[in-house]
Structures are given as C-alpha cells and as structure tokens.
C-alpha cells in the first residue's frame, strides 16, 4: 500500500476533517469494534444473504443457493490468504494504479503484532475479506436456479481475482480511483455496482430460467427471506460503520445514516407499491430496505441524516422502477433482481454522494467535500469511477463466463432445471417435513 492515508479512501477523507484524529498505535476500542464489524459482515453473507436469496427461489433450489453462498465464502478466503489480500492492499509498484503487488502473498510478514492504522493488521485483513466474500455472493442472485455448481465455483474464483480485487485496489487500495479522490466509503461501486452489473451480464449470457416469464416463480419461503433481510440490515452496521476502521464519531454517523437510508428506502418502496398495486408487501418493503442500504453505502461516511433521508427515499423509488423495467419490460431474468436493486442503487448512491457530502446544503449537508472540490467536480469523478466499474466489470464478467462455459458448461440441462438443482447438483433436498 502506498501509505494509509492515501490508500484507503474513507480515511483519506476523514483526515481532512478537523477533530478526527487517526491513532498511531493499536487501540483496543477500535479493535473491539472492528472485530465485531468483521463478524457482522460475515453474518451478512452467512446466513444473511444466503437466507434472503434462499427464500426467494423455488424450494427445489433452496440448497443450491445456500451452497453457492457458502462455497464462495470458503474459496474467497483461500484466494484472499494466498494472494488476494496482497494484490488488494499492497503497493503494486509500476502497476499500482491498476493492481497491488505480491509482497504479502500467503500473508507473508503478517504477525500478531502487525498494525494497520489503530487495529491489528489481521483484523484489517479479515474485515476486508468479508467484503471479498459478499460481493461474489451477491452475484449469485443473477444466475440462481440454473447454473451448474462447478461452473459457479470456477466463475466466482475467476471473477473475484479478475474483477473484484482490481476494483477494490483502485478504490481502497491506493489505485487510480483513490488517487482521483473517488468517494466510495463502503462499496457503492466496488460492491454494489460491481455485483449488479455482473449479475445482469450473467443473466443475459445464461438466458432466462425455463418458463420465465410466462410461468410464475413465487418465492418458496418468505419468512426466510425476511429473516435474511433483517440480518442484512443489522450486519450492514458492520459494513458501513465498520468502514470507518475505528469506533469513533465517524463510525457513529455512518451507522446513523445507514439506518436512515434503510428505513427511508423501505418506506419509499412500500408506498410506491401501495400506490401502484393497491397493497404493500413484505417482499417489497425488504427489497426497498436493500435498495436503501446499497445506495447509502458509498455515501455513508460522507453524508448527514438529512442527506441520508433523501438518498434512502430516492433509492426506494428509483430501484422500484428499475426492477419493473428490467424484469417486466426487458424481460431479462436477473433471477433475484440484483442489478436493479444493487447495481442501480449503487450507481445512484455514488452520484448522490457527490451532492450530499457537500457541507453547503443546510439541513441536508454532509461532512464536506475535499477542500478544493465542488459538487460538480466531484460528480464528474464519481461518474468516471462508476463508469469505469461498469465497463471493467461488464466486459470481464462476459469474458469469464464464456471461458467457464467453454470449460465446464454454464447451464444445467432442462431436465435438471425441472427437477431442481438441489437433487441434481447436490443429491439433497431441502425439506422433509
């Protein structure tokens, strides 16, 4: 890494704010919160996201979704330890704008005493790893109910290495976007746009599920989905407030605006649904919550409560219509609506960050832009970063899918799809009630 302050975007901005000091040595309070945040973000994927997704598919595919999320967590861990963390966080020398180096491959030199900011480096490694886990796991929603398991494993590993890690390095690891002052506190581009675009590309490359859209495919277990959604909400405190990498006022404000974003997104989606369809639904309100959370994510270290309220409301509204558009109009079978919720939400959040970070909006002010930056200037940087994410992710996801398809075949046979992936891929069935 080129040095803490320059390398890690959130801190980069925080040090510009008066009164927020970054401790030099290890701080037990910060460490306590980051250990907790790490647990919370892992909890978002396992079981949070797994349940959220698992409840949405048909019962014959529930285990396949759980298995996919779980396996991704495992393989991402191994990749991270072997070289992923190093490529993400260390200085890549001449290529540093694009990717880190291999100095810390196999976590070389990392001891119990290594410190990163005010926390043990081991904790920093773990915290960042949980992001490398959830991002490919989010993509699962795009190709759910039809991808072969071996293809899924291969795809996820390659995607993590070729798409996620470089992007994370660009933004948080001292790469070119960090250098430009791109503001993405906890992963609007790195996590949400990225996962959303990958899911959309995967859905299009693989084709719709058999029967879509004529045949209805209602969620098999909504209480499970709601449970997962609630875990996501709670875990997101670790995701966003943990991205302050300290237990301080920045973390507190991030938690507050995250929570407001979730609530506002939920209510906006609920009202929109109530107006359009005559009834509000629990699937709607939790989807609005995810939209609100995904959208506030890049902004969560930069905006205030007023901005969070507006961001959340816009998220619920925009992602609602994006979902209708992709699924109903374009009839692209992004099975669990990853793109319209995470992709569109992340994009919206990246842009709105430039606005609501500004200190000059009265009750809607944020914590302030960089000293010499204007809203419009920042908007440009944000659009550039988001655009780069879309292009990099979109192109490489396509290429990876083609390669994996050629190697092991992407899609289950029609008979396997009819019988369900649980039996055909895993020799198990979810329920024997």
């Amino acid at each position: 890494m080129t040095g803490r302050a320059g390398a890690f975007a959130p801190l980069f901005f925080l040090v510009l704010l008066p009164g927020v000091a970054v401790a030099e040595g290890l701080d037990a309070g910060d460490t306590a919160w980051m250990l907790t945040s790490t647990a919370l973000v892992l909890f978002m994927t396992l079981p949070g996201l797994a349940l959220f997704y698992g409840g949405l598919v048909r019962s014959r595919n529930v285990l396949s979704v759980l298995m996919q999320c779980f396996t991704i967590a495992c393989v991402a861990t191994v990749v991270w330890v072997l070289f992923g963390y190093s490529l993400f966080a260390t200085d890549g020398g001449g290529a540093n704008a694009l990717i880190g180096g291999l100095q810390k491959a196999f976590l070389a030199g990392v001891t119990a005493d290594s410190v990163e900011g005010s926390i043990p480096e081991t904790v920093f490694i773990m915290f960042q790893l949980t992001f490398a886990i959830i991002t490919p796991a989010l993509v699962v929603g795009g190709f759910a109910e039809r991808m072969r398991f071996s293809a899924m494993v291969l795809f996820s590993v390659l995607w993590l290495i070729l798409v996620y890690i470089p992007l994370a390095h660009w933004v948080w690891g001292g790469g070119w976007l960090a250098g430009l002052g791109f503001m993405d506190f906890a992963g609007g581009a790195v996590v949400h746009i990225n996962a959303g675009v990958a899911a959309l590309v995967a859905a299009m490359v693989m084709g719709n599920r058999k029967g879509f859209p004529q045949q209805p495919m209602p969620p098999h277990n909504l209480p499970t989905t709601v449970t997962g959604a609630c875990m996501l909400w709670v875990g997101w405190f670790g995701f966003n407030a943990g991205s302050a990498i300290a237990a301080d006022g920045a973390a507190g404000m991030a938690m507050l605006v995250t929570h407001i974003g979730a609530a506002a997104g939920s209510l906006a989606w609920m009202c929109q649904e109530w107006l359009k369809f005559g009834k509000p639904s629990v699937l709607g309100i939790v989807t609005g919550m995810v939209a609100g959370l995904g959208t506030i994510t890049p902004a969560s270290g930069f905006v205030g409560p007023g901005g969070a309220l507006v961001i959340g409301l816009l998220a619920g509204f925009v992602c609602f219509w994006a979902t209708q558009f992709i699924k109903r109009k374009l009839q692209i079978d992004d099975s669990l609506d990853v793109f319209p919720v995470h992709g569109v939400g992340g994009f919206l959040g990246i842009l709105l960050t430039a606005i609501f970070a500004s200190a000059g909006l009265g009750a809607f002010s944020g914590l302030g832009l960089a000293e010499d930056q204007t809203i419009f200037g920042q908007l440009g940087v944000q659009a550039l970063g988001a655009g780069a994410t879309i292009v990099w992710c979109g192109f490489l996801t396509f290429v990876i899918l083609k390669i994996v398809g050629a190697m092991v075949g992407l899609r289950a046979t029609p008979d396997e799809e009819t019988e369900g992936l649980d039996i055909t891929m895993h020799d198990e069935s979810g329920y024997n009630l």
Partner: protein
Amino acid sequence: MKLITAIIKPFRLDDVRNALAEVGVNGMTVTEVKGFGRQRGHTELYRGAEYVVDFLPKAKIEAAVADDLLDAAVEAIANAARTGKVGDGKIFVTQLEQALRIRTGETDEGAL
C-alpha cells in the same frame, strides 16, 4: 356400502365432522386438496410479478357408509358445509364393493 367423497371449504371441517358424528358416521379420512372451479382464486404479487392462484385450498372428506346411512350422511355434510357462497364444494357418491378393517379382519359393514 357407499363411499362419500365431499370437497368442502377447509374451515367447515370441524362442523362437518360433528354433523357426521350426529348421524352415526364415526370414521372418515381427510385430505388437503386444491380445488378449481367457479370460485375465483386470489392474486399474489412478488416484486411486480403477478401470480394468479386459481387453485384454492379445500378439504376432501372420504367416508365409507352403509347404504342406509347414505342419505342422512350426505344431507348432514351438505348442511354443515354450506355457506351459500361460491366454492362451497361438491359431494360425490360411488359404490363400494368391499371394506376391511385391518386390525381385526372384519369385513364390509362391520369394518366401518
């Protein structure tokens, strides 16, 4: 012997069972089924995807009765199951050739 098969609204089940007991029918077998008929199902909506549920939950009652109990039993079921609204269901009667109580080996009317 006759086999009565009645398809009714699930929440009338207890009433029907009591009505049958009153006319002397003390055994029956019940299955959860889905019915399709004149009664309109409801709509479910998941993120804007409409899903029309045509098949409505019904309870199917099967009761084997001696011939002389048939009319009373049918009437008892009909009265207890009636709400007057569409979807109340049907009663079908078929001929039963043999019946056997597994535990004792008793046959025919003795088996009921």
